[in-house]
């Protein structure tokens, strides 16, 4: 059965969930559930939009599967703090006795939680973060990434830059590990010269100084990785500056959730993503339709990843008992589910091998959204896979 608590957390707030908590515990004690899943994600503060999307996408799939699937989900808020995430993981493993953990958005939180969780014999499925440490040497048989390795979208942007004939890119990202990896990922594929390379302060919101440097350089294109609010600020200020060099970046700054906040400034910008709502397959059509019907908004990249993660778990549960770790692991690795992004399979390091598309920001009626204009990389696997000892 589906945990009442999870349903309650979705629909109602307040005293009802306390009651539901005791009911959920009761259900677990009854032992009817085939699998118990702990979903730790960010539901408060500035980054809550991403966590809410992953949760909603995930729960949509679980609810669609119905009570027969025998899945119970416990949802907790990590507040985007690594130590809180670790505490919650301990709680889920030691107290809730979950079989599978998932939900974390940020790489630094994933790095805090994943090694400990898999070392205790739990499965972890990442619906978003894919730091290189867990893809290469630190890969683990119980860790599966259902989104992407962090470098992937940046690599696709680099590949697209070559195709578009850019010869002199100006590149910038925040000065933290994911930012440094982003620039490395772009440069790995991009064949031209660099007009400039800049690291900004994490959380910076004013980019006048950087934009002045772009203007003064002889760049023919701009690549940037500035997730969340940083990207909104940069794009608005860039549009206001009157520079008309083409811009390319990963999907994170052009996601459905934040595009409306960027507005016209994003129109025409190329960005790379493994998913878009116009990918033509039955699973995706149904997903976009039901998500809109259920939550009254268009699904985002993050929602699609949450949805795929839940469906992967359901597909494996249909084949194997989660208590039989070897069989369940093999069932996960088969990835025998209808991914909304189309073809999907795991590489040796349990990270996806998938197509990455180039999208363009367009306006449909009053809503800003993306459409796919090209395939950036086909059947792409991350470069760290070769450092992973798994077969």
């Amino acid at each position, binding site marked *: 059965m589906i945990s009442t608590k999870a349903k309650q957390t979705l629909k109602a707030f307040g005293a009802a969930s306390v009651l539901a908590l005791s009911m959920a515990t009761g259900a677990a004690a009854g032992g009817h559930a085939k699998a118990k899943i702990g979903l730790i994600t960010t539901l408060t503060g500035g980054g809550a*939009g991403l966590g809410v999307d992953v949760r909603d996408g995930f729960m949509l799939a679980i609810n669609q599967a119905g009570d027969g699937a025998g899945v119970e989900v416990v949802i907790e808020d990590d507040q985007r703090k690594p130590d809180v995430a670790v505490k919650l993981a301990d709680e889920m493993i030691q107290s809730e006795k979950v079989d599978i953990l998932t939900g974390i958005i940020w790489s630094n939180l994933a790095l805090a939680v994943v090694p400990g969780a898999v070392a205790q014999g739990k499965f972890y499925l990442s619906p978003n973060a894919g730091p290189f440490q867990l893809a290469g040497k630190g890969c683990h048989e119980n860790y599966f990434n259902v989104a992407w390795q962090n470098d992937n979208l940046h690599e696709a942007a680099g590949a697209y830059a070559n195709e578009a004939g850019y010869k002199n890119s100006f590149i910038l990202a925040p*000065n933290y590990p994911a930012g440094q990896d982003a620039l490395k990922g772009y440069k790995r594929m991009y064949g031209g010269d660099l007009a400039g390379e800049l690291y900004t302060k994490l959380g910076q919101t004013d980019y*006048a100084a950087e934009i002045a440097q772009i203007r*003064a350089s002889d760049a023919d294109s701009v690549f940037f990785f500035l997730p969340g609010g940083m990207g909104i600020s940069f794009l608005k200020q860039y549009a206001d*500056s009157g520079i008309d060099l083409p811009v390319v970046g990963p999907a994170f700054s052009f996601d459905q959730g934040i595009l409306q906040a960027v507005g016209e400034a994003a129109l025409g910008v190329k960005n790379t993503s493994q998913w878009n709502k116009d990918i033509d397959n039955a699973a995706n059509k149904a997903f976009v339709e039901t998500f809109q019907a259920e939550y009254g908004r268009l699904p985002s990249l993050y929602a699609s990843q949450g949805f795929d993660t839940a469906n992967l778990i359901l597909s494996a549960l249909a084949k194997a008992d989660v208590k039989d770790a070897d069989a369940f692991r093999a069932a996960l690795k088969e990835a025998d589910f209808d991914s909304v992004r189309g073809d999907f399979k795991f590489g040796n390091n349990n990270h996806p091998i998938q197509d990455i598309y180039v999208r363009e920001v367009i306006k449909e009626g009053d809503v800003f959204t993306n459409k796919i204009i090209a395939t950036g990389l086909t059947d792409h696997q991350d470069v760290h896979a070769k450092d992973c000892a798994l077969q």
Partner: protein
Amino acid sequence: MSVILLIEQVLNGLQFGVMLFLMAAGLTLIFGVMGLINLAHGSLYMVGAFAAAAVAGWTGSFLLALAASLAAAAAFGALIELTVIRRLYARDHLDQVLATFALILIFSEATRWTFGSFPLFLDTPDWLSGTVMLPGGIEYSLYRLTIIGIGLVVAVALFLLISKTRVGMRIRAGENDREMIGALGVDISILYTLVFALGAALAGLSGALVGAIQSVEVGMGEPVLILAFVVIVIGGIGSIKGALFGAILVGLTDTLGRTLLPVLFGTFMEASSATTIGSALASMLIYILMAGVLVFRPTGLFGSA
């Protein structure tokens, strides 16, 4: 680096500084008059930005949005002054820090509850977008020039308010001797509410102005709040002149540090580590500046002991 780029960066630093001044002015005024540290000042900045985004969404008018930001922030400012803040004037700084820290939590989540978890849209109006050509061939954003202008107007207005008007006289009297002004029959609690609402309105205005070129989202006030504190501490707490000077100093230091340090490090190290280390140092620079100022002038540049 060319001279033109350098001048443009100085302008950028100035604009950043002026924006910080709008935040810092309210903060320093409130501290100077009431002796209160208000961590929730950043929340009022956020309230201003959200109010502006909402009104701009309904009406499409940027001027109405700015008016809404002033009104909403002033109203919320007066509300928290009447319910919470006035109980804190007689308390020590510790209680003030904690109570206003609690207000941040309430404001942030209440805003998210009202407007949702996703950033809102607020854009510069058409008549202020694009760039202008300044003498010497510098292409500069019209909107940013406008912010510099508004900031300077506010600075002059505040200066006149405090030095030339009756309200200003009372504010100055209140700073110097609270009991005296009470004895003179000025209703001090109304004065305090007014000053607090004025400071809040300035924060709200700056949130709306900045929101148009940045991201209107929950938590947007906190980084600015910390910077505004750095500004008033450098300038000397309670001094409007100090806030203006400190804001411009911080704005210039941050902007020029960001652009010049990586270049400087690049002259003697390998390019990519120069970028990393230069940027790392640049992000610490204003705090180093602040610590340096306080070590030599423990009450800031314009502060009285």
